[in-house]
């Protein structure tokens, strides 16, 4: 069995458990109180964002060229999301900020977020960013994120035949690289093994789910055999 075959099998068997280590992207401690008050503010999100943004930008300017400065600018970029209701404002702002980050922080691991956050960009802009981020001189984490973003785009467009080799190369080349609390290998493996919708139809046996609890203990759907189970995919948002 090839190394890739083993990794795919590990993903399928659920043995490739998420790596429960704090991900690399962390807001600098100095900015945590700012983010907390942004999150807790009762103002409309757009207003709260526009209030907080100058402070993040100031911090970024004072810490230009450092990891902390980059994280502050990424915060400003990600939260352009709150401008989404103003026609084109989010996309225009996001494009400008991303270009600035790309220029000031070439070859930083944090550029991976530009590949990931497709939802703040126009489609053409995102494609252009992916082009730049796929360059061989980019760090592996950035190339991994870029490849995954491309594969997801193809997958969602129904071009699964084109997505497959990209996903396989992610498992092969970037399988162990962390993405959040899991790995690129686990996510690409999941895309390669998406359940056929017919297998998730009413009357079909539910496919096994293997995962971990928030404190890292292995869990399986079949642990609850013999019980009526409501599976609830949810997030606290």
């Amino acid at each position: 069995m090839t190394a890739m075959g083993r990794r795919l099998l590990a993903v399928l068997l659920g043995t490739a458990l998420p790596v429960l280590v704090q991900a690399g992207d962390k807001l600098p401690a100095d900015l945590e109180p700012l983010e907390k008050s942004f999150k807790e503010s009762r103002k409309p999100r757009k207003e709260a964002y526009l209030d907080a943004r100058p402070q993040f930008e100031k911090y970024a300017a004072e810490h230009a060229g450092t990891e902390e400065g980059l994280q502050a600018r990424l915060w400003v970029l990600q939260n352009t999301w709150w401008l989404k209701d103003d026609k084109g404002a989010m996309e225009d702002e996001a494009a400008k900020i991303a270009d600035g980050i790309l220029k000031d922080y070439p070859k930083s691991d944090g550029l991976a977020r530009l590949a990931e956050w497709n939802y703040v960009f126009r489609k053409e802009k995102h494609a252009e960013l992916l082009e730049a981020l796929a360059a061989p001189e980019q760090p592996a984490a950035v190339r991994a994120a870029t490849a995954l973003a491309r594969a997801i785009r193809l997958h969602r467009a129904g071009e699964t035949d084109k997505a497959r080799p990209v996903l396989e190369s992610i498992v092969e080349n970037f399988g162990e690289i962390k993405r959040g609390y899991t790995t690129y290998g686990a996510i690409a493996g999941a895309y390669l093994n998406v359940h056929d919708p017919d297998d998730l139809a009413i009357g079909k046996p539910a496919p096994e789910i293997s995962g971990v609890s928030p404190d890292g203990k292995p869990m399986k759907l079949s642990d609850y055999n013999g019980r009526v189970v409501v599976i609830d995919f949810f997030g606290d948002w």
Partner: protein
Amino acid sequence: MYEHERSLVKRLKDEKFTLLGINSDDSPETWEAAAKREELTWPVMFDGGSTDGPIATQWGVRGWPTVYVIDAKGVIRSKGVRGADMDEVVDELLAEMKKEEGGAQVPR
């Protein structure tokens, strides 16, 4: 937002019923904070810290919440039910399970 789930779990605490959450939040702390704040007690799997987590991806989940109801034999019996409809489906499946368990004990 957790009110209905909490009352369902409480009402069925002595039944063979489990609410299993698959959490797509960006960190385990988000669920832990919510569980503490809202006094939530059911089992949760943490799906890697994004909406592209391996479980949600394999199940093709693109909207949250997404709900499946599984019977005691592990068969998918209902999808997408919320609120009172969820209660009704769960109650029916529990009744069905009891009937079958009871049936098996009757000497022939």
